[in-house]
């Protein structure tokens, strides 16, 4: 009896799949992606697990990487170049800027390569391809969380109290992830066709870091057109806003943050469209 109901249920859920050529632009099937959410979870989990299993220092790298950059920045930009840090202790200033930046940078770099390294999956099994770069971006959140604990420790050490605006932090985090996914989708799909992307990405990220207020304060940017150009970079809004929310230094996000958000959404949507358009040839060219 029980079995009959089960098989009846099965009959009902049995869905029809139509396979035919797709042409032109199409939208990513988000409902399908939702059905595959466990796959995304397992891919994230795999990335994190493997990274920490294969390296000697394991999880320590998540902390060491931004920490060492912070030490270098403190010595060079604050010590030698004497750049202003908005009155915050330089180590805290740089570290708090590096956290969202590293989240973005690693997400873009890993997502950009993800389809090429995952080619054995793509050529053998069907699943929404977007799961792969998405998981690469999300895996960075684990590293971020570990480094965030260190940031809290540093704030306690330097006696910096978080501001009341700290609740806005997740929003800036989300903005960083959306931007990273948008750029990551573009790069990963391009990388399948053109391996040049692998060479371009490090330069792109380096230039992008200097275009974002990671090593300097956003207050250095003059008013006027320069400000608007600056706001076109979503990561500028993210890094600046992140510092403002947690340390209370620098200016609060202005209307420019709206420009940043619009830009991030534009990157994501265009990235999804391009990804979807190229998706059908991934298995043939990768």
């Amino acid at each position, binding site marked *: 009896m029980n079995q009959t109901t089960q098989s009846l249920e099965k009959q009902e859920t*049995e869905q029809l*799949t139509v*396979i*035919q*050529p797709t042409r032109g632009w199409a939208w990513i099937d988000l409902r399908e992606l939702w059905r595959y959410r466990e796959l995304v979870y*397992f891919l994230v*989990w795999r990335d994190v697990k493997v990274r920490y299993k294969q390296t000697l220092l394991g999880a320590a790298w998540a902390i060491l990487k931004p920490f060492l950059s912070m030490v270098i920045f403190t010595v060079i930009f604050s010590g030698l170049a004497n750049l202003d840090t908005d009155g915050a202790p330089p180590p805290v200033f740089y570290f708090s800027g590096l956290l969202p930046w590293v989240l973005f940078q690693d997400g873009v770099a890993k997502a950009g390569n993800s389809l090429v390294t995952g080619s054995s999956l793509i050529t053998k099994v*069907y699943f929404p391809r977007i799961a792969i770069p998405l998981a690469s971006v999300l895996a960075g959140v684990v590293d971020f969380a570990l480094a965030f604990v260190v940031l809290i420790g540093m704030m306690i050490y330097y006696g910096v109290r978080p501001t009341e605006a700290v609740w806005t932090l997740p929003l800036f985090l989300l903005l960083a992830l959306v931007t990273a996914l948008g750029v990551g989708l573009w790069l990963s799909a391009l990388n399948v066709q053109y391996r040049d992307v692998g060479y371009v990405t490090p330069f792109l990220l380096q230039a992008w870091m200097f275009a974002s207020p990671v090593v300097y304060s956003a207050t250095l940017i003059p008013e006027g057109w320069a400000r608007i150009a600056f706001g076109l970079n979503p990561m500028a809004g993210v890094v600046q806003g992140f510092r403002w929310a947690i340390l209370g230094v620098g200016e609060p996000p202005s209307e420019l943050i709206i420009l940043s958000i619009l830009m991030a959404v534009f990157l994501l949507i265009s990235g999804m469209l391009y990804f979807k358009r190229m998706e059908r040839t991934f298995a043939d060219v990768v």
Partner: protein
Amino acid sequence: MNDAIRVEDLGKRYRIGGMPSGYRTLRDALASSLRRLSRRESPPSKDTIWALRHINFNVERGQVLGIVGRNGAGKSTLLKLLSRVTDPTEGKAEIYGRVGSLLEVGTGFHPELTGRENIYLNGAILGMKRAEIERKFDEIVDFAEVRKFIDTPVKRYSSGMYLRLAFGVAAHLEPEILVVDEVLAVGDAEFQRKCLGKMSDVAQEGRTVLFVSHNMSAILRLTEETIVLDKGEIVMRGPTPEAVDFYMTSEMARSGERRWEPGDDYQTDNPFHPLAIRVLDSQGRVADRVLSSEDFSVEFEYELQEELTGLRVGVYLATSRGEQVFTSFDTDNPETYERLTDRRKGHYISKCRIPRDLLNGGVFIIGVNASSFRIRSYFTDEHALTFTVDPTGAPGSQWAEPRRGPVRPALNWEITEVVA
């Protein structure tokens, strides 16, 4: 209306040439689009081939359909289209229910992860829900016989354990439609028996199975109906015994020799390039038919693009029903092994003589393999060439009856009359 799969005029075109390594650089793309702009030419059509075209068939729910065809006939492309790995160029296929594919077992296995972790990861990749994996977990572990090592990274597994685990996950997926490609070419006899057993269980549960194999005895055992693919088209569909006969006899049209062009069935960056395989009769002529009562030879011609260490080149002999008869390598002899296991770059022929009074009459399949033991397999084609053995004059020819078994050796019999 009770079809599980309906395929209408399905076709897949691939681009070849121009992209030797599968991808282009930006420079090539820019150059060719500039050229196209300036001369207004459409992309040249000679750079494309139809891997599959005008494919029409349907599979009823619960049917086990075999698909046979030579390498490059389009079998894998068909399975890739049906499992949605790649998009068709034209036509349409309708599929009712979840498709599970065993295109290659162990897809997504990560060597650093433990057996347990890989079961979850691989299950998720194949489309299982976590609850479903948890429910099947014990069954999978028992099938794979790896309980003791379940928390060991799979890089420490023997190849047999690895395969059993990989197949175990895939086989417990329970899709409505299961697509199987040549998994049985790997693993030992025990593993193959297990896989075949699992597959017939699946079929008996009323699920639909598409089964691609070069193993004719497996096809005969598991399927009732079979499609024969050739050059991207369906040339025959019928009851399996008829289809297998059709396929095997059409194979014979190849007249005792098979040549490979650069890039056929192998990557051009592979240091081992097969050139040809031939069957030579007792007079040294290329022949597709030899006498069981005379010696004949098999020769395999190839090129080494670089010096290879530990190389062995050999043949597998099997009957048309897929029973293995023997395996032999050119460096089996210890003295030859000393001399030729390291082979310089160059052009070679490995030739072996097959003695008279060994094989029974029938159609045989020669497979070839070039490998360095436990290091790398350079080239394998399980189905390189077929030839026919004529039993005329074989031992026992005075009785006009077929003899059982793939071999028909001339044995020394002693007949003694026992006097009580």
